[in-house]
């Protein structure tokens, strides 16, 4: 097993309910190697290690649970299909991020063509509104403000162009460095810096304006 692969940590960022979750950091490269040979059980272990991160990234890019689930499924199917082309010296995180971003981009384009599942008919938006209403009824002002702010951020993010949103999510929410984001997106670091800076400015303006309108 190459030493580069051995250093890859598991992408799992959340523990499942119950807390009994083994550390996959050391075993992930072995699972990858076996999965490359066509071992489905090993690939399932790869999924266990990476599913939280893939689903969370897909949710941040797509904005709803159903699309995130579809995207995660497609990501793992593509990953299994192209796992033979993955080279062990590559960063598995980045490789999987790249597939995730591509899948989410495809889903967003399909959604744009079909006009399906926009923010207007997103069920989670309804949940959010219900949460706001509940918060209002129980007079917990902080919860209401928090729910409102989350809704504003979601709307602001979805108002961004696709590449700016991807760059901002990967850089500011997923915590990747500018170079890593550039590799994932297949562009230059300077381009990513510009996209991130522009996206931050737009988010700031959007949120300030929206909060000001809400206060009025």
């Amino acid at each position, binding site marked *: 097993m190459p030493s580069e692969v051995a250093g890859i940590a598991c992408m799992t960022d959340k523990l*499942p309910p119950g807390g009994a979750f083994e550390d996959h950091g050391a075993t992930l490269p072995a699972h990858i190697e076996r999965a490359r040979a066509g071992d*489905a059980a090993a690939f399932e272990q790869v999924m266990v290690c990476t599913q*939280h991160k893939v689903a*969370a990234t897909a949710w941040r890019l797509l904005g709803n*649970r159903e699309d995130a*689930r579809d995207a*995660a499924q497609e990501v793992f199917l593509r990953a299994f299909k192209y796992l033979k082309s993955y080279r062990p010296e590559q960063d598995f995180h980045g490789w999987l991020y790249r597939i995730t971003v591509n899948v989410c981009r495809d889903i967003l384009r399909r959604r744009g063509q079909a006009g399906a599942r926009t923010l207007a008919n997103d069920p989670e938006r309804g949940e959010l509104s219900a949460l706001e209403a509940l918060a209002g009824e129980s007079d917990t002002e902080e919860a209401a403000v928090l729910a409102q702010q989350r809704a504003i951020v979601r709307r602001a993010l979805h108002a961004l162009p696709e590449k700016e949103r991807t760059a901002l999510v990967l850089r500011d*929410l997923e915590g990747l460095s500018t170079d890593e984001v550039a590799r994932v997106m297949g562009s230059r670091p300077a381009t990513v810096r510009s996209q991130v800076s522009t996206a931050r400015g737009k988010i700031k303006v959007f949120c300030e304006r929206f909060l000001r309108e809400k206060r009025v």
Partner: protein
Amino acid sequence: MNCEEVKANLSSYVAGDIEVAGARETVGAHLLHCEACRALAAEWEASHRLLQLHQPPEFDAAFFDALRRDVLRQISEPRPSLFARLFGQPFGQQALTYAAAFSLLVCAALFAAHFLRRSPTPAVEVANKENVGPVEVQTNDTPESGSHTVEGPTKNVESLAPQPPPPSAARRRRARPAFNASRREARVEHPTAPPETRDVAEQVARASNAETAVAEREMFRIELQTSDPNVRIIWLTPRTTGVDSSNNPNR
């Protein structure tokens, strides 16, 4: 570093990704004594904190179990053959549907063409004439076959086929002269008329042939076609008026 340079780097400063060496310390030092830039930095911080609220919901174990189960099921399914991939996928199914619909359409068109070619039933109409004048046999099967004039007195002849819609005015004008003088013999104007039409015309002419001579001696017929194709003026007048035709040697 002046205020403009600091403002240009504030978002990166707040997000912690200033990459120019020493720039972070420089911006921090500027913010200590510049209240305007400090206020702007606070706005960027608020925006950055707001962005961090965009966190996914808690995905439960059932979510991931179903996800893995679906992925593994699709992975373990045998790979479809090339034919199945070409014709079994949604696009292939659509293609098959389109091909079947196109085949049905072609069959229907061929059947209709064959049926129409086999039964060119001419619509024959014979004008109702009594005793004198030419008899017109109109056909409407082809544009070339116009009306056929059989002259001479006839008995009542009724329409031999269902009445077709009236032909166009131009065709009628070409087929029917505005003025028809009487003639002795029956004549089919169009040689390419269908055989059935010619037979009818000949029968009509033969049936009336015996009476033609007597009738023509007695009556003179003038037809005038008006601009309305449905209106024709027929003028019957005795020949005995004026010159006695029976005594006319030129007749």
